[in-house]
C-alpha cells in the first residue's frame, strides 16, 4: 500500500506536456490526462512511489519532475 502520509511532489510543465499518456500507463492512479490533453495529478499518493518515479522517467518530453516530498492531501 502506498504511504499516504508523505508523497512525492511532482511538477507538470504544461507547455512541454503533449498528452502522450505515458504517465497514466505507469501510474494510472496518480496521473490523468485532462480535456486539454495535458497531464494532471489526481492523487499525489495514488501509486507506490516507485511507480510514480517510473512515470516521471517515462515522460517522453521531460514534462514531469520531482520537486520534493510533502504531505499528501
Amino acid at each position, binding site marked *: 500500500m502506498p504511504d499516504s502520509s508523505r508523497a512525492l511532489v511532482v511538477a507538470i510543465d504544461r507547455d512541454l506536456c503533449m*498528452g*502522450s*499518456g*505515458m504517465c*497514466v500507463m505507469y501510474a494510472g492512479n496518480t496521473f490523468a*490526462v485532462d480535456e486539454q*490533453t495535458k497531464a494532471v495529478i489526481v492523487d499525489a499518493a495514488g501509486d507506490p512511489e516507485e511507480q510514480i518515479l*517510473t512515470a516521471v*522517467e517515462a515522460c*517522453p518530453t521531460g514534462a514531469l519532475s520531482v520537486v520534493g516530498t510533502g504531505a499528501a492531501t
Partner: protein
Amino acid sequence: MGPTKPMLDLERVRKVFDLSSNYLVATGGNYRDDPYPVWHELRAQAPVQAGKVHELAGITEDFFFHGLPEPDRPHFSAFSWDACQAIYRDDATFSSSPVAVDIKGGEAGVTNSLLSMGGSEHRRYRGLVQSSFGPARARWWIENWIEATVHALIDCFVERGTAELNVEFCAAIPVLTITSSFGVPVEQALDIRESLSRPDEILRILQPIVAARRDQPQDDLISVLVQSELTDEEGRAQRLTDAEILSFSLLLLAAGSGTTWKQMGITLAALLRRPARLQAVRDDRNLLKAAIEESVRWAPTDPMFSRWVTEDVDFFGVRLPEGSVMHICLAAANRDPQRWDHPDEFDLARPIRPHLAFGSGPHVCIGQHVARAEMSVAIAALLDRLPGLRLDPEGEPPALVGYYERGATAIPVVFG
C-alpha cells in the same frame, strides 16, 4: 457477434503480410539470424559510431528503412540506452525530417504528415488527434472495433482445433481495427493495405467517407478528424482539410497495421515457446501486461528509427556534421546491460520500466496505447476461447526473422 464466414481472403493476407515477400524483402525480410549478439558487441565497442546499423553489423546487402538509403549524407548509429534516449529527447538537434513538411500544398503521403513535422507545428497537429489515442480512450477502441474483430477471427477457426495464428489472427487484427475505425467495410480493408504505396488508390476509398462524415458525423475516427479544429499561429481556429485528414489516415495505416501485427506475433511466439510462462499468464491475466511490455522491450518489431542532424555537434565523443543521418538502434538500447539485468532473457518478473520500443521525445508513437489494447484483448481472447492452446508439435516452431522489420514466421497451434 455470432459465427461468421472467413472475413478475409487468407491467401491475400498471407501475400500482403509475408515478411519475405516483395513487400518486405527490402527491409531485410530474408534475414534469419539473431542480430542481438552483434548489436551487443557494437554497443560495447562504442555507443555512437560512424556507419549504418546493418553495415556496422557486417551485412553487405542493401537494406532500406527509415533514414535509408540517403546516399549523399554521412551516416551514424547509436547503440546504448543513454545515447538513444538523448537523441529522441533532443528534437532540436535531431530532427525527424531532412526537409520541412508541406501539409497544405504537398501531396498526401505517409511522410508528408505529423511524422515529419517539427516544433510547434507538430505540437498543434498532434494535439488534435492525441486525445483519441490516449490510455483513457482504449475502451473506445476496444468496444467499438477491437473486440468484434478479435472474436470474429477466432470464430473462423475455433471449431477446427488448429490455426496458424500469425496470418489468420495477428496480421488481420490491426488492419481491420484501423480500417473499421475509418468506417471502411471489411471487404475493402485489404484493398487499402495493398495500396499503401499508391496513396491515390487509398484516397479514392477514403474520400467519400470523409465527405459523408462531414455531412453527418458518427462515433468513429474520421468523424473526430473532420470535427477537429486546429488553432493556427495567429490563434484562429480552422478545420482540417481533406488533404490533412487523408495524410493522417495514411500515416496511421502505414505505421499501425504492420507493426502491431508483427509485435503480436512476436509476443505469442515468445509465450508459446515458453509453455510455463504461457501457463502463468493463463492463470494470472495481470501478467499479460508484463508479457506485452517485455515483448516490446526484448524484441521490438522496428529495431531502428532515424533522425537528421540539424547542426554540427559533438555527441558521445563523435563529431556529427550538420545534415548527417543518425540511426537509433533502439533494440540495442532495449537490451543495454547498464539498464537491464540479464537483458537477453524474456522475463515476465522484470519490473516494468520505460523502454524505447515506441520511441521517445515529441514523436513518441501515438498509437502505442491502441497497439497495447489490441495485443492484450487478442491474447486474452485466445486464452479464454482456446483451451490447452499450444504450439503444434508436428509443425515448425516459430522463429523471429527480418532485420529492420522483425516478426515471427508461421505460428502453428493446436487446442481443445
